């Protein structure tokens, strides 16, 4: 499919070919699924909702529940108030969630629907059942990316639900960022292992990684409860993971409830996990337990064992900014050379951040935010790499480049399953990444090397 790509790269202003991002609403829908008993609602045409649900289902292999305002031509001219009112009435009468988390779409944004006003009317008309909550995030598809949408919905949780009672509690707040459920679970395990008391939201573990039960649950048992999110206003601090996905909510919480926040990278790789563990340790005012130190030691042991295969290997990386930055840090820690680094999400801070990590040795690297996979492919053609890391869509490039070793990482992964259950964050997650990278490199060698170089022991 990509056989016609050449090494000639031209800047494109008007055209996106094979994107490395998608639109805001899906991120908002995903974040909303991290609230317990919450039904995400898409205020727009019904295709948006169907697409998001299908896409999330392909990634998680789990049912994804969400409703839509089912916009018609009429609604797109006269506004979506009637659709919203009917939708909310139906949702509360039949699906009975605790929270309806509404996100907008490009359509409802452009026609200028005022969601707070719609909520107000719904409430004043006495239609909102007692104890139920409505929250909303503006998620225009023509700004930012799915990561922006996730950040906006997380911020909406703070804006609508967090409250300050005046009494600061002994818990801090953890904002995990756009992580898979398995990663959220691992973040919690590490923090709990250090002995921290915390509230995490959104939390999609036990929502989108549930066991087979023989039952269909509209609202699985996981997710942060409204009460937990409300209490975040009384937390003594917030630890936000990821500048793009989590900092806006942390800022909002500081602004609204005066909860100070600390920002660290997603705990991907050694250094970033160290920073996370250290931040949790300081917040919890405790020591890092031996068990976690052992995991760290095992990771370093694995890194040493495999370093001979990884040193100076050239890598192309693409994905979401909060993921790619610590991943690049990790690749550098492994002695590898990230030479092309791309995110589809716009934001110059990404480029600055990655450049810093690469240092003078990586001055020649291509680093670009707001870029797509055609550019990445062209750069790979011009300056080949040994390894590609990115979401499922990287497989086209890997195939076109003579089965380039390819490690799937990020969102979405539509054709493999490990991400559903096994984390890539924390020391253990980093071990999985090292294993994945070395497997990919050695598998290619085993498949393609001449018979005399085919070795039993590596």
């Amino acid at each position: 499919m990509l056989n016609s790509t050449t090494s000639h790269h031209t800047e494109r202003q008007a055209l996106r070919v094979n994107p490395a991002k998608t639109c805001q609403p899906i991120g908002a829908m995903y974040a909303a699924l991290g609230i317990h008993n919450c039904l995400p609602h898409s205020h727009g045409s019904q295709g948006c909702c169907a697409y998001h649900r299908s896409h999330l289902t392909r990634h998680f292999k789990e049912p994804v529940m969400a409703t839509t305002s089912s916009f018609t031509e009429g609604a797109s001219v006269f506004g979506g108030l009637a659709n919203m009112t009917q939708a909310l009435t139906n949702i509360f009468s039949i699906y009975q969630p605790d929270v309806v988390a509404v996100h907008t779409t490009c359509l409802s944004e452009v026609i200028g629907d005022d969601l707070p006003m719609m909520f107000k009317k719904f409430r004043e008309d006495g239609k909102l059942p007692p104890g139920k909550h409505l929250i909303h995030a503006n998620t225009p598809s023509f700004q930012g990316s799915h990561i922006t949408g996730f950040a906006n919905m997380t911020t909406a949780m703070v804006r609508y639900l967090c409250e300050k009672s005046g009494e600061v509690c002994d818990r801090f707040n953890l904002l995990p960022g756009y992580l898979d459920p398995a990663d959220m679970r691992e973040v919690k395990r590490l923090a709990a292992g250090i002995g921290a008391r915390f509230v995490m939201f959104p939390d999609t573990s036990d929502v989108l990684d549930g066991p087979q039960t023989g039952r269909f649950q509209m609202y699985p048992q996981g997710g942060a409860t409204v009460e937990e999110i409300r209490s975040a206003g009384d937390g003594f601090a917030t630890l936000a993971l990821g500048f793009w996905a989590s900092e806006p909510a942390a800022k909002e919480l500081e602004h609204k409830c005066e909860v100070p926040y600390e920002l660290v990278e997603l705990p991907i790789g050694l250094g970033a996990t160290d920073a996370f563990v250290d931040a949790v340790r300081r917040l919890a005012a405790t020591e890092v337990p031996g068990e976690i130190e052992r995991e760290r030691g095992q990771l370093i042991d694995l890194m040493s064992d495999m370093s001979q295969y990884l040193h100076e290997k050239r890598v192309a990386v693409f994905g979401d900014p909060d993921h790619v930055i610590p991943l690049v840090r990790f690749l550098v820690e492994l002695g590898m050379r990230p030479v092309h680094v791309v995110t589809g999400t716009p934001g110059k801070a990404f480029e600055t951040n990655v450049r810093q990590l690469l240092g003078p040795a990586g001055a020649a690297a291509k680093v670009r935010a707001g870029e797509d996979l055609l550019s990445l492919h062209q750069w790979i053609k011009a300056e080949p790499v040994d390894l590609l890391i990115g979401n499922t869509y990287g497989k086209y490039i890997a195939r076109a480049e003579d089965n380039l070793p390819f490690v799937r990482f990020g969102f979405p992964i539509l054709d493999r399953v490990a991400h559903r259950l096994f984390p890539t964050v924390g020391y253990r997650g980093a071990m999985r990444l090292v294993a994945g990278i070395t497997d990919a490199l050695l598998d290619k060698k085993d498949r393609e090397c001449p018979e005399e170089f085919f070795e039993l022991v590596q």
Partner: protein
Amino acid sequence: MIQVLEQRRAQIHRKGETATPLRCDRRSVAGSVTQRACAFCGSRVVLYPIADALHLVHGPIGCAAYNWDIRGALSSGPQLHRNSFSTDLQEMEVIYGGERKLKQALEELIDRYRPKAAFVYSTCIVGVIGDDVEAVCRQVARAKGIDVIPVASEGFRGTKKTGYQAACEAAFKLVGTGDTTGIGACSVNILGDFNIAGESWIIRRYFEEAGMEVVATITGDGRVDDLRRCHGARLNLVQCSGSMTHLAKLLETAHGIPMRRVSFFGLEDTAAALYEAANFFNDSAVLERTRDLVGREVGRVYPALKKYREALAGKRAALYVGGAFKAFSLVKALKLLGMTTVLAGTQTGSPEDYELLREICDDGTVIVDDSNPVELAKFILELDVDLFIGGVKERPIAYKLGVGFCDHNHERKIPLAGFEGMLHFAREVHATVLSPVWQFVPRRSRRSSASTPSREIISPSKNPAAVEERKGLA
């Protein structure tokens, strides 16, 4: 009866209990977890298999991202259609208009890929900001010397059905612009097969073997030049009636080509489709070759179905699919496997479709229009089904309930069309219904397992989850 949204009651029937016609063809109720998509989605799925055309999505990135190569519509040649091209509209264009960006994107793409034609899909936002997409298309077409065809596929225009119509209108703009010399008397177009897993190739092979020329498969493994000359065919065979009837009607009106609704799913329907065409041409050689082909294929496949039929006899199936014609074929094919259809639903059936569906189903079969996961899950449990047939959003629901699943939508990986497709279907249904996995599902492990010895590998009493479940019920 299970609890359903009040407004949806008339959209659900149980055969033998309800006499009034099923209410359908309605917009989804706002606030329901509908499984339906939008007009844009409908247009994309219909046109995208045209492999040597350019498909440019004019809108924000999401619309281009979510349907990027998600349907296995195979091409025997160009793979251009599998890329994702979009104008990735940003706030500035939303304010000042996206026409300039669209023009630039089109020119760049046409220069880079030299496609045979280009389709430009409008998304919701384009309809609202008022870009004159037609004018841009006309301009670029003139400058580049290829057809650049706008598709009026704004999502809010309606369900997929609306989008199908827009796609047919767009495709029809190519029809009649090619040379039809050399097209024989016994020639057909096959409409509404999208070459998922290579199904168009199977169907084409049958027709060619029977001595009938296939001028165009629309749009499976589609080519622009085939569309240009498809008006030279003498008969249109329409498979996915929901998506392609409109194009067939346009062809009938403009070029006098008669149409027949057919299905290539199941032995009975595949044979009927071939005979339908052969009888139409009334050519004794073609008829004889068709008879030979059908005889040979049925003779080959039917005995091979026996072992599946024995294993599947009496099993209960639920199906929820896009269009009604597929539902008819599935009910028949399941019957051939000895199975009973206890639930049949579609996203876009018409009143006539549901009447016909009611006729071919047994008493007690639940018939439903535009359903949602909560309903479907409750039906699966209430009707105690062994197999669910649906699409991507239904698969994990079936699995969560511990029920076998068969994708009869665009994510199927093996061809289910034609005679050999029936064998594939039987194999797939057998594999999923009798998978040993279901014995580990608490709910299923309580069921009598007499007919499926494999379920006794772990007896319910030794299955801790089942014990828990029983305690919970006690």
